[in-house]
Each structure stands twice: as C-alpha cells, then as structure tokens.
C-alpha cells in the first residue's frame, strides 16, 4: 500500500486533463491544468512527489512552502480570469502524504503558506466557483486542510489505500504510546478515529464514495465514471450554499456529529438572549 503513496494523484490528473507536467515556472510538485469537464472547462490541481525539490522535506508529495504558494497563485489566477464570467469548477485531486515536516518550513512560516492556499480555495468557493476535492489516495492532516478541505463537496475512492485522517497511523501510535493494532481496534469502536474510508464516510462529510475498478490505473471507463461523479458534485455545489454547511445536514452527519450540532444549536439559542 505505501509504495503507491502519492502516485495515484499524478495518474488521475493525467487521465482527467491529458497533462502530466507543471505549468511554466511552477515547481515540479504542483500540477495545474484547465480541462473539459462536461460542457465547461474546469481547473484541476494536484500535489505530486518531486524528488528534485529545493526543499529536502518536501520531495515525496508533501505540501510544503512552494506547493502552498503555487496552489494559492493558480487558484486565484482562475478566480481573476473568471471575475466577470462563468465561475469554473476548481478540482483538487488529493493524494498527499501530509504537510512538509522540516525546519526550513517552520522557519519560513509554513503555517502562513498553508493558510494562504486554504484562503484561496475558500475564496474561490465563496465567489461561486464549485470547489470539489477528489481523494484518490491519502489526505492527511495539514496537507488536506491546505489542499482539498475547503471544498464544497468531497469525493473519495472506495479503496483500502484511501485514507483521510489527522495523523499517519505509525506516527499516531508513537505519539499516543499505543500499538498500531490498538489503534485499529480503537478505530472500530470510535468512528472518527478510524483509518477505514467506510468509517470516514459515516461521519457525513463525504458527498460520494466512488467504487472504481483498479484505482491505480485509470481506464476510459473509470475516467468517464469519475468525470460523471465530478459533474454531479459540481451541480450539487451550484444548487447549495457557498459555505460548508452541507457537512452538517446529511443523515450520517446528524447521527455522528450530534454533539457538535447540539452545541451549535445551543450557541444560537443563547447568542440572541439580549
């Protein structure tokens, strides 16, 4: 499984856009392309491994400083170009290890870099661009907060290599002083801690779980399937609000996020008290 990390993203980016190299001037780790999606053009973005990166801790598909600012720039470029016209969909293809864990990154304020990229995605969403995250592999922690988690709709492949989580299992085991087997057991009891995408789906945050045959190797059939799913998500985003409230309204969300919903309702009740 881990041998495939961060390679699916590139494969699916190429399959959906026909391109496999960065735009001129961009680092090798960020692929951006405008390509047809149904009757319109959409901007696709993906973070991929770049063994030649100037930053030693950002060579394996992590979101580092250059990646974050490049994403921000390319998303805002689409916004500017569409300022007076149709707001093209922005599709984040997600298969990334995490954020970059390095001293250079901390020194040069990666917290701000990642915030800047998230700001761009959220701004696109707030301006009316349907922003869709397509999780084809891993979507971990700060990397996902930066590239994908501000989307209107999140789609994920239904596959054992697909993991959405706050921390890699091995790292989480070390930090919480548990074994990996313990974490798996805990994940079965406590859905938000699970590494299984089916349990993630129960949290009510996903728009769709896509069963795609042989997800490592896109084919004309599976590409058409994914395009249709993306178009459905785009239409659904257009029909909904520009905020993230849809993550609280599904039947799954109403069950699994009950405590959060109750806290929000109580806050609203008490706010108006004056």
């Amino acid at each position, binding site marked *: 499984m881990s041998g495939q990390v961060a390679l699916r993203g590139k494969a699916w980016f190429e399959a959906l856009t026909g391109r496999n190299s960065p735009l001129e001037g961009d680092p090798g780790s960020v692929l951006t392309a405008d390509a047809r999606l149904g009757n319109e053009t959409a901007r696709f973005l993906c973070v991929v491994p770049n063994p030649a990166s100037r930053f030693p801790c950002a060579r394996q598909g992590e979101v580092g400083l250059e990646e974050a600012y490049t994403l921000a720039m390319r998303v805002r470029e689409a916004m500017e170009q569409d300022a007076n016209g149709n707001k093209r969909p922005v599709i984040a293809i997600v298969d990334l290890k995490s954020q970059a864990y390095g001293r250079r990154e901390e020194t040069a304020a990666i917290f701000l870099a990642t915030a800047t990229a*998230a700001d761009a995605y959220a701004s696109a969403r707030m301006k009316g661009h349907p922003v869709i995250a397509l999780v084809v592999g891993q979507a971990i922690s*700060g990397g996902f907060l930066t590239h994908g988690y501000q989307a209107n709709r999140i789609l994920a492949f239904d596959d054992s290599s697909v993991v959405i989580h706050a921390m890699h299992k091995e790292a989480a085991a070390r930090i919480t002083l548990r074994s990996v087997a313990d974490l798996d057991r805990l994940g079965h009891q406590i859905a938000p801690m699970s590494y299984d995408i089916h349990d993630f789906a129960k949290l009510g945050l996903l728009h769709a779980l896509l069963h795609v045959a042989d997800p490592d190797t896109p084919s004309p059939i599976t590409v058409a399937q994914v395009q249709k799913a993306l178009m459905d998500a785009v239409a659904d985003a257009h029909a909904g609000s520009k905020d993230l409230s849809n993550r609280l309204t599904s039947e799954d969300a109403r069950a699994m996020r009950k405590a959060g919903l109750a806290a929000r309702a109580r806050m609203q009740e008490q706010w108006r008290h004056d």
Partner: protein
Amino acid sequence: MSTPIAAPAFVNRHSFIELDARARAQSLMDPGSWRELVGPFDRMESPWLPLQGIAPQSDDGCVVLKGTIAGAPSVVIALEGGFQAGSMGEVSGAKMSAALDLATQDSQNGKKTTAILLLETGGVRLQEANLGLAAIAEVMASILALREHAPIITVIAGTVGCFGGLALAAGLSSYIVMTREARLGMNGPEVIEQESGIEEFDASDRGLIWAINGGEQRVAMGVADELVLDDTQKISAAVQSYVKAGLPQVHRSRQVELYRQRMAALDTSAQIDPLMLRQSWNSKTREGDTR
C-alpha cells in the same frame, strides 16, 4: 521624613499566562459587558473521550464570551491549554465555528462584531481525529466568512502555543498578538524530530525552538503583528487597539505574490537563519503598510 518609594513595575504586573482560558477571556472584555455562552453548566461535553477512559470537561475546553471590547461588539473564543493541550474536538470546534458564524450574521445585519481567538493549542485532538480535523476546516471557513466584515484578532500567550491545524487559523487572522513565551508553528519540534530525524530538528534544543517559533521571531519577521509583555493590561490594550483599527488594508494570507517571491529568494542549500529573515522580510510587514 522619607518620600514614598514607587513600587517597581513588576509588582503591579498581572500575568496573563498564569490565568486559565476563562479568566484570560474575561480580562479582555469591558467589565460588566459580557456573558458566557454554552458554559460549563450547559454540560456540552465530548461524547468520545469517556469511551476511551478520559475525563471530559464541561465546556470541552472552549470558552465563549460575548460582550464589548472598547465599546465595540465582540466575541472572545478561548481554548483551554490545560485541558487535552487545548486540542480541538467535535464540540469545542462546533462552539468556535458557531460563535464565528453568529458574529458574521450580526455583522451582515449591521452590528459589526469582532472576534478574538485565544489559541493555546496543539491542533487536532487525536482522540477525535477526523471530527477534530473537520472542525478545524470549518473554523477556517468561518474565519474567512467573518473576515469579510470584521477583524479576527488571534492572541497566543503560551505556554502551549499555537500548533497543528489551528496554526492555519492563526495564519488566516487579521492580526496576531504574541508574548515572548509563546510559540507559533505548524509542526511542533517533537513531530519534526519524529518525522524527519533529530538532525532536522532537535526537539530538546529549547533555544532553537524559540529562535524559530517564538513570539519575538514571528513578530520580527513580520508574520505576527505585535509582541506584548505577559501582562493582562498590556495584552488587553493591544487587543483594544486592533478592535479599534478594524480590518487591515490587506490580509497576510492574501499576499500571495509577496510570499512567492520570498520563497524563491530563500537559499535552501542549508538551514535558513531565522535572524536573516528578520532583516529580509520585515522592511514592510505588509504590502502598502509600513509599521
């Protein structure tokens, strides 16, 4: 006859760091102007912690006070660093997002409401993992929605500092106020050491930690706005001045071109000298704004 000797300044100083989240939040509000929302007696606790044998807290580690600061409608949302290291769970995240969203609604209806975030946190609460991460994404969205109308002022005082996913929330803020004791960074030193090795970051080297993440460094390099003494009066005064200042001309997280150029100019062949960034980055803290 002897003349009275004035007490040295430190005698009258009241440490902000020594206060818990509730007392910190209260110290910032105009006296008598505030009330707490969804407080301890509402008992909105984490449903996930008791399943793992961990004692919950009645407010889930998040304090929300609504009132005025310098006469202006404000909401202070404070994370309790003493509870689960201030980490964000389902309920604490919902409280923060909800308060921000209500401030946005009020602002849209003509009652501009500033938000002050007291971020003493390690980020996602791992015992709630995906609900904590989702909550942080929603807090970020809520900050960006409010930011269209009113400033978000983040205060990081220590000793926990602001790390993890909530460092992005700090990065999205209109203003960041820090003490010397405070630290701000995405990944804590232990996590970097664990993921990238001790050569990359020796987490036992406290000098290194503050040289990179400390309040003085963050302000000096221009990614935070003001360095304040650990004193309730001084911190309160700083917050009031930003409440009165209103929205900045441009938010740091929108200055894409400036920071892209700064990244391109970095010599990455060796570790970057934090002191060098103080010189090269802080001739202007923002485009069009010299401070």
